């Protein structure tokens, strides 16, 4: 029983790469191994084509990471924390650079405050700051939006996009929230039980799979009948109250909507919900 | 009847004679010493006792007749045997005592009287003192004293040739030291030593230099600080 076994990931320069998997899939374990925090029982790990144990300094000076929750020296200021971490990397950090990075993550006004006074969201942002401070090529973010409120999540997402577009960084982002990845990643992998389930471009993968769609109509029974008349080859899951629940591809939705409306039904909402587990279940069902 | 009386008379005088001789000799000793009204002297003290590792030390002694004596060291330390500090025949011979002239002996080739002195009264520390008195100078060359509380000790004196006063140039103080019972904890590790002799001989060597005799010493010098 392995936490992670034979994981091959292809992350290309400039990607925002989504590393997905349900809880316990082995995402954190993988990231910890990449960052030499824990050791594989067998096999080798390469980044930038180099063995991470043999060329550790070279590799780690080009990687910035947040592993799980970012933690700092609470009794020191944000500024000091960054300075210490940068200096530990051997990076010739200047005050200017630190303030620049703090500004980038929106913490420049609190640079003197002790980190123990920071909220979770602020710590998350500071975490990204420490991942950036030494100007790495690759940034690894382990569930960066965990514990954040919607506003916080949005800010992180925007930051990630900016890092990729404006600063040309490669980003490796782990998450168990599909829609988040959907929004910002261009490529992704889904792992489960320590192994790759599927890897590829986000758009292609999501398009190719079905999602659960809740359609709220005034006459659900009639809707079911009408849907059956289309060449919809997803499946109708259930009907609850006024809501018809189906599993459909994205491309199925517009025709279904059109059919229902043309036949006089009032469609009050079409809500696609994709949770990774369901997405997954679909995938794994297919694989089997 | 007369014969018996004569016999007793002769016996009495025979017995009495040595006593009065002893007393006479001791009076001489006292007289010599009373010439010293006061003195100030520098001393060097060397201690050779099994349980003491003490460097040689210096001090200045002051004496003023009849019984004032003190030791000053500036701020340095000094360890001086009490008996050596207080060595003064007057001490011994001022109270009531009986004395017996035991005989004579030679010390370093010089003839000495041996006098035994027993203080009367019983409340002093001294039980018995034996004095070896130089026949020619009436200076005390040796004292062996048995005390109630401090065991037995011996003083050996050497006087400068042709000295006017009975003040020694060196004194050796010998005594037996009971094994010290030092409290634990002050010095760290105590080695487990064999309980060899519970008593060990100790010697203190004192040399006296630069006597200033009868120059007058104010009483304030002897005030305890």
């Amino acid at each position, binding site marked *: 029983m392995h936490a992670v076994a034979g994981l091959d990931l292809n992350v290309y320069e400039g990607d925002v790469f989504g590393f997905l998997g349900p809880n316990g899939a082995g995402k954190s374990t993988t990231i910890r191994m990449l960052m030499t925090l824990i050791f594989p029982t067998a096999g080798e790990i390469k980044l930038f084509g180099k063995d991470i144990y043999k060329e550790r300094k070279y590799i780690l000076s080009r990687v910035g990471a947040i592993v799980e929750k970012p933690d700092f020296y609470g009794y020191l200021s944000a500024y000091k924390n960054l300075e210490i971490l940068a200096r530990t990397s051997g990076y010739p950090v200047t005050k200017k650079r630190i303030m620049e990075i703090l500004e980038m993550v929106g913490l420049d006004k609190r640079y003197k405050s002790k980190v123990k006074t920071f909220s979770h969201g602020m710590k998350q942002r500071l975490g990204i700051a420490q991942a950036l401070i030494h100007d790495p090529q690759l940034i690894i973010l382990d569930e960066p939006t965990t514990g954040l409120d919607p506003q916080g999540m949005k800010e992180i997402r925007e930051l990630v996009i900016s890092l990729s577009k404006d600063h040309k960084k490669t980003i490796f982002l782990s998450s168990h929230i599909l829609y988040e990845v959907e929004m910002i990643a261009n490529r992704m992998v889904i792992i489960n039980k320590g192994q790759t389930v599927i890897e590829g471009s986000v758009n292609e993968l999501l398009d190719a799979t079905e999602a659960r769609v809740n359609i709220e109509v005034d006459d659900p029974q009639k809707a079911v009948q009408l849907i059956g008349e289309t060449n919809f080859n997803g499946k109708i899951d259930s009907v609850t109250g006024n809501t018809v629940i189906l599993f459909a591809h994205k491309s199925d939705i517009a025709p279904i909507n059109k059919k229902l409306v043309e036949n006089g039904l009032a469609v009050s909402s079409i809500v696609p919900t994709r949770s990774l587990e369901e997405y997954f279940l679909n995938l794994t069902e297919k694989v089997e | 009847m007369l014969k018996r009386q004569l016999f007793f008379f002769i016996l009495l005088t025979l017995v009495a004679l040595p006593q009065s001789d002893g007393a006479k000799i001791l009076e001489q000793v006292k007289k010599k010493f009373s010439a010293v009204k006061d003195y100030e002297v520098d001393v060097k003290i060397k201690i050779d006792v099994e349980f003491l590792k003490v460097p040689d030390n210096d001090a200045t002694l002051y004496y003023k007749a009849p019984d004032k004596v003190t030791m000053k060291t500036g701020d340095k330390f000094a360890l001086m045997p009490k008996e050596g500090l207080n060595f003064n025949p007057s001490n011994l011979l001022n109270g009531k005592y009986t004395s017996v002239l035991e005989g004579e002996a030679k010390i370093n080739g010089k003839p000495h009287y041996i006098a035994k002195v027993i203080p009367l009264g019983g409340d002093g520390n001294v039980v018995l003192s034996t004095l070896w008195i130089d026949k020619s100078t009436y200076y005390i060359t040796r004292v062996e004293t048995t005390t109630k509380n401090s065991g037995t000790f011996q003083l050996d004196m050497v006087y400068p040739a042709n000295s006017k006063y009975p003040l020694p140039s060196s004194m050796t103080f010998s005594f037996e030291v009971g094994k*010290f019972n030092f409290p634990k904890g002050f010095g760290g590790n105590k080695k487990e030593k064999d309980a060899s002799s519970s008593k060990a001989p100790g010697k203190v060597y004192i040399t006296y230099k630069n006597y200033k005799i009868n120059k007058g010493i104010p009483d304030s010098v002897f005030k305890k600080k």
Partner: protein
Amino acid sequence: MTGLVGIELYKIFRKWRTYIGFITIAVIVLVIEISMLIEGENYLRFLTRNLSSIFVFEGNFLNGYVMSYLVMGALAIHIPFLITLVSGDLLAGEATAGTYRMLITRPITRMQLLTAKVIAATIYTNLMVAFLGFISLGLGVVLFGTGELIVIKDVLFIFSQDDILWRFFIAYGIASLSMMVVTSMAFFFSSLVENAIGPIVSTMAVIIVFYILSNINVELLQSLKPYMFTTYMQSWNIVFTDPVEMSELWNAVLVQSIHIVFFLGLTFYLFRKKDITS
């Protein structure tokens, strides 16, 4: 490496708990010196009662040197405890704070990180002992003046004034070494756990248990005594005899150095392959 050591020292000295050590030492020294001021005469009389039947004493025996000597007794328990407060926190503290993740993912080797921490710990330990020396000797001499030092073991020693300082310097040196043993043990425990309390308590527990065992007069335990490092923690006292047993001194230095190398070596060895899950 200098940079890393500087960072570690900065982290140590920005924690208020570091200052507990220095403040406590100052308090201990003050308490001892004040008590001696008040009770000193009685104490000396008690110590020298055997001698005073035969000798007359003169001298300033309530001086800075005597105070400093007494203070060194604190090296048995108090100073080790104060040292574990910091040394025990060096690695465990990172785990508690969660900052291991930040540190070990930096482009430095784990060895470099550990070495920097060990050097910082050494500096701290030596600073503590130096501070002890400064406060007790320095302040002691200023307040009480100089004089002769009485040391009582199975022999009563009196050291003359010019024969004392060099002994103290060597004693402090050896004391530093002894405290380094404590540091290295606390450091070792610190590398194994995720909370600083563990190493602090364990190190002190080991010290106290060893002390207790060494004082039980059972043959088996007494034969183990040379192997317990606590036996050598008082070896600074060897300099306060005459003649100084150099072979004993070197032996103490050797045994303690071996302990230090052992604990640090073990720490380095185990830490290299440790999975950081905190």
